[in-house]
């Protein structure tokens, strides 16, 4: 698959602060990359360098193989960009604004009309087309900005927090739009909503203090959690020891931990051998043999925990 977005050793310094400290990544056609990180981690700065808005202090960025510094116009033609906060010219109508973008993208009058109509349909903007953008609700404003980014059907799409401030329905729509376009594009989506990564991203990169601290699928990242794929259950306090002993006899179980006691019941957690998933039959076996156990379930952990773990544990050792 063709690599459409390439960053190599991107660096950017603002005064004393090293905002981006050597970011290297590649996104191939068909991939949707989730760009995660705490506020101020350097997500937006990295995206600004990828889109050619900011000049990196070191390193380079290529869009569809074209260096954004050497041939900015050519690179920008291949690119759709939704900047942070989805800025648009508020004094224009949605139609006027999109037509302006289509013209500056080099489409002639008829083609511009066709493109605007197609983008409007995809983003469901037809009801507000003649309104001034500044009078629109946040959701519509965001969709106008997204329409602007996809108008020329670019190979590369870079979106800085595309669902920020949208209601759940609108978020769902935007995610579906991204998923629909994913097949023939390379897309980067920055977000701090982690469920979004699971919903639309084929890959996630976590950055912290200007460096990439994790890179993989959502599943890969969750595997890094110590309690991923463990089995947790509640048992009456009197039976706890016996149950723990029975559990540790299973071949798949490496260790049994007592997590805590509450209301006369003990919470137990069975950990699998490193990396090995506990087969689901085991869970049913437990249910069958240890009737006293309640609320037996497999803990998967969630991305929020991975995120917190990675971005806080790294803080102490980071050199920035």
């Amino acid at each position, binding site marked *: 698959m063709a690599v459409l977005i390439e960053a190599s050793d991107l660096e950017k310094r603002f005064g004393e602060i090293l905002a981006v400290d050597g970011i290297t990544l590649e996104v191939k056609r068909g991939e949707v990359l989730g760009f995660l990180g705490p506020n101020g981690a350097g997500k937006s700065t990295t995206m*600004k360098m990828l*889109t*050619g*808005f*900011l000049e990196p202090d070191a390193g380079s960025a290529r869009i569809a193989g074209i260096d954004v510094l050497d041939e*900015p*116009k*050519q690179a*920008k*033609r291949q*690119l759709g*960009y939704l*900047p*942070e*906060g989805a*800025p*648009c*010219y*508020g*004094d*224009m109508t949605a139609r*006027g604004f999109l037509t*302006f*973008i289509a*013209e*500056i*993208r*080099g489409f002639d009058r008829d083609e511009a009309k066709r493109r605007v109509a197609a983008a409007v349909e995809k983003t469901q903007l037809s009801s507000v087309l003649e309104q*001034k953008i500044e009078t629109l609700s946040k959701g519509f404003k965001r969709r106008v900005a997204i329409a*602007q980014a996809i108008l020329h059907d670019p190979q590369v799409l870079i979106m800085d927090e595309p669902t920020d401030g949208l209601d759940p329905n609108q978020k769902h729509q935007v995610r579906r739009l991204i998923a629909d376009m994913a097949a023939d594009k390379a897309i980067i989506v920055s977000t701090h909503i982690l469920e979004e990564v699971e919903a639309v991203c084929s890959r996630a990169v976590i950055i912290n203090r200007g460096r990439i601290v994790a890179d993989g699928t959502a599943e890969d990242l969750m595997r890094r959690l110590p309690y991923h794929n463990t089995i947790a259950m509640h048992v009456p306090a009197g039976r706890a020891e016996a149950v723990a002993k029975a559990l540790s006899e299973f071949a798949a179980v490496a260790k049994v931990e007592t997590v805590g006691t509450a209301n006369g019941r003990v919470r137990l957690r069975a950990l699998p051998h490193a990396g090995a998933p506990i087969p689901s039959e085991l869970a049913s076996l437990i249910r069958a043999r240890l009737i006293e156990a309640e609320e037996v379930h497999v803990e998967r952990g969630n991305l929020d925990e991975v995120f917190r773990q990675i971005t806080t544990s790294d803080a102490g050792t980071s050199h920035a």
Partner: protein
Amino acid sequence: MHEFVRNTSIIARREFVAYFSTPLATVFLIIFIALTGAFAFYVGGFFERGQADLAPFFQYHPWLYLLLVPAVAMRLWAEERKSGTIELLMTLPISPWEAILGKFLAAWAFIGVALLLTLPMWITVNVLGNPDNGVILAGYVGSFLMAGAFLAVGSCISALTKNQVIAFIVAATLCFLLVMSGLELVLNVLRAWTPGFLVTAVSSMSFLSHFDRIAKGVLDLSSIVFYVSLIAFALFANRIFVELKKAD
């Protein structure tokens, strides 16, 4: 080349229309016409002079532009930076020069519209007497050129700040200095302690002296070169400022 013209004109068209999408255009045009008229008739003594020319009309243009042109220029880049649309603009497939020139030309055309709306003055003076229309044309050309120079300075300052009020005040102050540098008042102060060439240099930077010559009908090359090169210089600085400050 074709692409440059195309992109610049698309940017310029958008900017020009943007002036009219807010009350700014109406307010500006009314005030401009009212003030040019008021100055010509009441301060300049248009009728009392008993001469068929527009000298009292053009005479006050530098002072009017001092306040009004920075008001047109202040939004050009400051607003773009404040609303974040600069990020959108600069990631479209256009060059920075196309954006800078497009914006400048739109604002200049807007001031051109304001000047065109003063044509009733010209008609009046032609009805009342037999003016030298060549001199009047030179006056209009000179006035438009001078407005362009003020505007380029204003656009350049506008790129330095997100705050339109600051952009306005700084640009107006700079324009004031450029106008004042030709007055004897200023030159005398300079003469006392600076070498002669510096006094000449400062006075040659003056909008007033250049404009006076043009308004008298002398559309000489040096004045045109002065305004055009000032515009070029300010826009070049504008380009640098946009690049430096866009990410702030």
